[in-house]
């Protein structure tokens, strides 16, 4: 199991579309993926779970990955956070 702290960078937080991207990406890996926030631990392959985190810009989260491809998954997911989930504009 590996863990890493990360900050939500994009201006609108992890709303529906970033959440959708995050869950879709996570589901491609075999590893279990959980996010810790404010004492909660949610299944990050669950769209409802990720969305109800209501993680806004600046929120500090801890990613937890566990499984055969955890290293590779962590790299891809961290990259997603850093690039603002590929959201070019934040109008919606």
């Amino acid at each position, binding site marked *: 199991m590996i863990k890493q702290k990360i900050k939500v960078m994009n201006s609108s937080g992890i709303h529906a579309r970033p959440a959708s991207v995050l869950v879709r990406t996570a589901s491609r890996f075999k590893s279990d993926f959980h996010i810790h926030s404010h004492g909660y631990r949610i299944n990050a392959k669950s769209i409802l779970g990720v969305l109800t985190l*209501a993680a806004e810009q600046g929120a500090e989260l801890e990613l937890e990955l566990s499984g055969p491809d955890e290293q590779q998954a962590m790299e891809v997911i961290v990259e997603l956070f850093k690039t603002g989930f590929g959201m070019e504009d934040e109008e919606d």
Partner: protein
Amino acid sequence: MKWRGKFSVGGKVIGTVFIYNPKQQVLSGRAIEASEVKKEQDKAASALRIADLEYRKINQLAGNTVKDESQQAIFDFYLQVIRDPSLRTEIYEKIREELLTADQAVFQVFRKYIQKLEVSGSTLFKERIPDVVDIRSRLIAAIQQKEILVKIDEECIVVCRELSPSEIILFARQKVKGIVAEKGGLTSHAAIIARSMGIPFVFGVDGIIDQITNGARIIVDGEKGEIITNPDEAELDFARSEILSRVSDDASRKKYLSGPVFTKCGTRIRTMVNLELEVEVDKAAHYGPEGVGLMRTEAFFLDQSQGGAAGVTNGETTEESRDQQRFIERSLSLCKADGDYITIRLYDVGGDKLPGFSEKEENPALGLRGIRLLMARKQLLMSQLGIIAEALRQSAGKHEFRVLIPMVSSVEEVRLVRELLHEVLVKAGLKQYAGKVKTGAMIEVPSAALIADILAREADFLSIGTNDLMQYMMAADRTNTLVSGYYDEYHPALWRSIKSMIDAAGGSSAEISICGEMASVPKFAALFAALGIRSLSMAAPALIDVRKMLSNIDLRLMKKELRRIFEATSADEVRAITDEILSGLNVSDD
């Protein structure tokens, strides 16, 4: 009182009102026994499956029209919620631990999530609440559907706020007479389904629900988009006489209600049906198709869902594989005459539908899809061939099966499927039926069109998919409105390529058929026949007009004129020449 809808399909009917308003959902309040837990969990699972199928159907239908990125994002979001692994687990646990009925459990699990979204600060999160509420309503409606159905009889005309595609399929099964909906929106996709099922349907009728009562008389005219509620005797008489005169119209069409059809010069053209869902089988039977020219199987491929696709991939017997086998077996009922056959197209999906698929494709239409994907995930191919073999066993070799390979671009792909199919049949102890299964290539990639002669020697048959062939040939995405003008069925390139394929395959025994949308347009069907095509496959309701056209043409006369099409220099010229060739025919009604 008279009403007018914004959009309508189908004919005219008189019936009694049945108000269907699933938004006023009443949850069952009862507690269940421990022995009922499994049953309620199964109900919830089945509702999730229905919703999944429904959203995929909507997504697919929307894909044929215009869809922008944000609409696509909403579809994706809906599907992700339906497939949320925690959602399913929580609903199951709620049923087991609190002994709730499935609808109550769904309601309470969603309520928890909705409350969390309500207290979150940003409006971006609150904006998703209506979507989440909508998904909840659909799941509960799916659970309760069975109970609603009891109240519907065949004289009913369903009046509702709006309908989902799965609801319209449900009503069609109950043989309702007609459907009226207040809203458009997703209903427009329901309209496509209503048309394919032949049910009069008027929608965009504001405020009608508040002005009617259950059981009242109503006249619905799907042709004109008009509705009369509480009609007086004069209005009823007029409607009855109009319905009668349309029936006599129908009588003149009646002789086209079944095949085979012969041209004036006596050439037989086989007219078959395209199928996508099991529920279409009964309706299709009404139009007397001579077999199934294209059975799509994508609906049985549960993309990305943990259980479904994994099961299919591992070759286990899953609910999807049973559904698919039953679909194939029921479709065999459309093979009435000796020599009728069904054509099953292997899964035509892209890599994004696979679980654990992490590569990003810049250009999915040119990516790992169709046979390419099936070769990369051989398990998937083998399991589908296994399903087909089982259906063949059940049918005891009574009818011919055809296996159609999507996205073929080289001859090796045909060889491989042929070999694997043989292997599967031998393993299943069905070697004696090997002659009953034919293997064919879908021609939709330009490279395949150019090697049609080679493919025709290797395959038992070729089937031209005009939609994709046109798209790939013109390098124009047909869902992209910016280039939709390039997608022109009269483009000389398409006609030259079809002609060259027919000429090239002429020396072989392989039969060429057409299953694209163009086959359902009577004038194109006539041209295809004149070019030498002897079997066409289309949506069931199109069969009548196509047969009527075919029985009125003389191929010998048309052939003389065809040369002009291949000498034409532009799409406009081809269009003008086509109209000229066909205007000579006086397609008579008798």
